[in-house]
């Protein structure tokens, strides 16, 4: 039972993260300064949020390719609107979230109520969002207020804002998992038919998983704009594959029913850290992709091996 809880809690990926971080620190001691750590977390945050969003959909057994389109779209919106100051940043956040939730609602409606396969439907919405992003912002550029650029990538009460946001999302998951909606999400992922029979509204659960995903993608795009202090209509493209790699690294089962948003957050952070480590070790950038690919496969195998041990324990 204890091993199972460890496997489900994302402790595994946390250990991997700390190990890689120790290696990174050993290779590059300057990386341990408060400034570098803050920079590292700022760089990781967008992918962490995107992976957290995708996890909501994957946990219920679905699949969401629209992550790339939604991030591009919201990033373009944030870059086009010109609101200054703290109030402007909050207003922008509201607009960003609204846009993300709208895309999520469309995905959710098409998948949960119109019963179109999730991969296919979200592929279509992804392409549409990319197009709308291009209509809003024709070329990379735009305007991101100084407040967003400096305050959102800085520290609050001595703690980097990025860590605060990531912790809030982890807390959100901690609470959500214990609500009825959270239990329904996992139940639908494990067996949609059984969930339906036991009175869970499967369509509504699926619908809301896409809403959560859309909102978190929007948050990712919002912080990406703050980080890069510019916008791009193709900002989301690199996120498409990395997001799923992060979720897999976190040990969330594709097909649904098992996993955690917190583990995906850590999986994404690990992925970014790994890139930094490979870069600082001086691996020729030609072969970074090769090592990344291999580590991804190894991480999934590792998580599978842990699950195997857990399952055997349970049987005995």
């Amino acid at each position, binding site marked *: 039972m204890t091993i199972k809880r460890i496997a489900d809690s994302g402790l595994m990926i946390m250990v991997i993260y700390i190990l890689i971080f120790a290696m990174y620190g050993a290779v590059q001691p300057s990386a341990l300064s408060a400034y570098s750590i803050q920079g590292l977390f700022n760089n990781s945050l967008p992918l962490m949020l995107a992976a957290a969003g995708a996890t909501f959909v994957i946990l219920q057994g679905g699949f969401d390719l629209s992550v790339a389109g939604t991030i591009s779209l919201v990033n373009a919106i944030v870059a086009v609107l010109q609101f200054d100051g703290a109030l402007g940043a909050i207003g922008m956040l509201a607009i960003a979230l609204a846009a993300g939730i709208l895309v999520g609602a469309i995905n959710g409606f098409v998948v949960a109520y119109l019963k179109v396969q999730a991969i296919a439907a979200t592929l279509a919405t992804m392409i549409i*969002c990319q197009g709308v992003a291009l209509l809003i912002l024709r070329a990379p550029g735009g305007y991101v207020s100084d407040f967003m650029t400096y305050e959102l990538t800085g520290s609050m009460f001595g703690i980097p804002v990025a860590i605060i946001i990531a912790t809030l999302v982890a807390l959100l998951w901690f609470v959500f998992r214990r609500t009825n909606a959270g239990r329904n999400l996992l139940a639908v992922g494990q067996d949609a038919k059984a969930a339906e029979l036991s009175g869970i509204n499967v369509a509504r659960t699926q619908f809301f998983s896409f809403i959560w995903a859309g909102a978190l993608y929007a948050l990712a795009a919002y912080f990406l704009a703050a980080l890069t202090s510019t916008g791009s209509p193709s900002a989301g493209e690199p996120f498409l594959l990395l997001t799923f790699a992060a979720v897999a690294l976190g040990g969330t089962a594709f097909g649904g029913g098992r996993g955690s948003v917190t583990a995906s957050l850590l999986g994404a952070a690990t992925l970014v850290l790994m890139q930094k480590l490979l870069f600082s070790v001086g691996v020729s950038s030609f072969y970074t992709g090769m090592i990344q690919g291999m580590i991804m496969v190894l991480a999934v195998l590792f998580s599978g091996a842990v699950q195997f041990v857990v399952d055997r324990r349970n049987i005995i």
Partner: protein
Amino acid sequence: MNQPYSTADKQDTRQAQRFSSTSIAVLAIYSLVVLMIFGSRLVSPSLGGLSQLMTVLYLSSFLVICAFGQGLVIMVRGLDLSVASMITLGGVLSTTFMQGTNEGLYFIIPGILLISALVGMISGFGITRLSIPPFIMTMAMGLIVYSVCLGFTEGTPRGFPAPILNAFMQSKVFGVALPILLMLILIVIFTTLQSYSAFGRKLNAVGNNPDAANIAGITVKRMTISAYAISAACSALAGVLLAAYANGATLRMGDDYLLPSIAAVVVGGSSILGGRGNFLGTVGGALLLTTLSSMLSALGVGQGWKTVLEGGVILVALLMLREQVFASLQSMFKRSS
């Protein structure tokens, strides 16, 4: 509501249902393609002619070839995200090996296909034997293959395809470009392979229900691995042809084919959950996407609107191809007859 359930007036329509729903889907897609090509004449007189049809067929041949492999993989409940990298691999290998001469072409092309099939087999092995999720495995394989291509070419692929391949891409027989003829031949072979051969039927069974297929004595893992191997080889073949078409390889030559290959399969009426696939539908999907894209480019529509419309067409096609739509269509037919 509480009437006793009677099976007296129900007939076993499973086979018939599947037949008609697939053929309706395929017919719908082809009529849409024809409508679009000839309808575009209304928008601009330079469009909608035979030459545009030929251009569309020519350009879709690359997509049709990758989409066949993608379709097989989707049929066995997987997804191949390494398509783009495999196209690049095919292109890079062909220009490197051929070095602009015709020498040894008869073993270079089979060699490239074999190498890429081997890469696909490794993906399939990871997926079936090590139970790595398909798209993680194929994505990782794509990353690895891409970075090997990048490292091997040091950023700029050198060499040229064989002149005879260049000539092949440019020649015409009776006004029909040779690549179109090649595509037609491949369509016949692929359709036979997917829908009428023992291999295709077994793959279909694996996609429908792997457990049942296993009990029925089908080597499920081997069939799944072969689907990935074929997909990799198809993408590499598309890469060889693309390199011959563009007279050289680039590292990003495959990028424009990954998502369209998936889109062509799903628009063509295959179920992404496996077990339902029809190659003629996929061909229709590829033609539809290529027609739309070339038409919008010809009309000078901006990139933004073009992308929105392409996504919109995929979404509309998906909504039209839903099971419920077929069910209601069928009941309409039944009522009228």
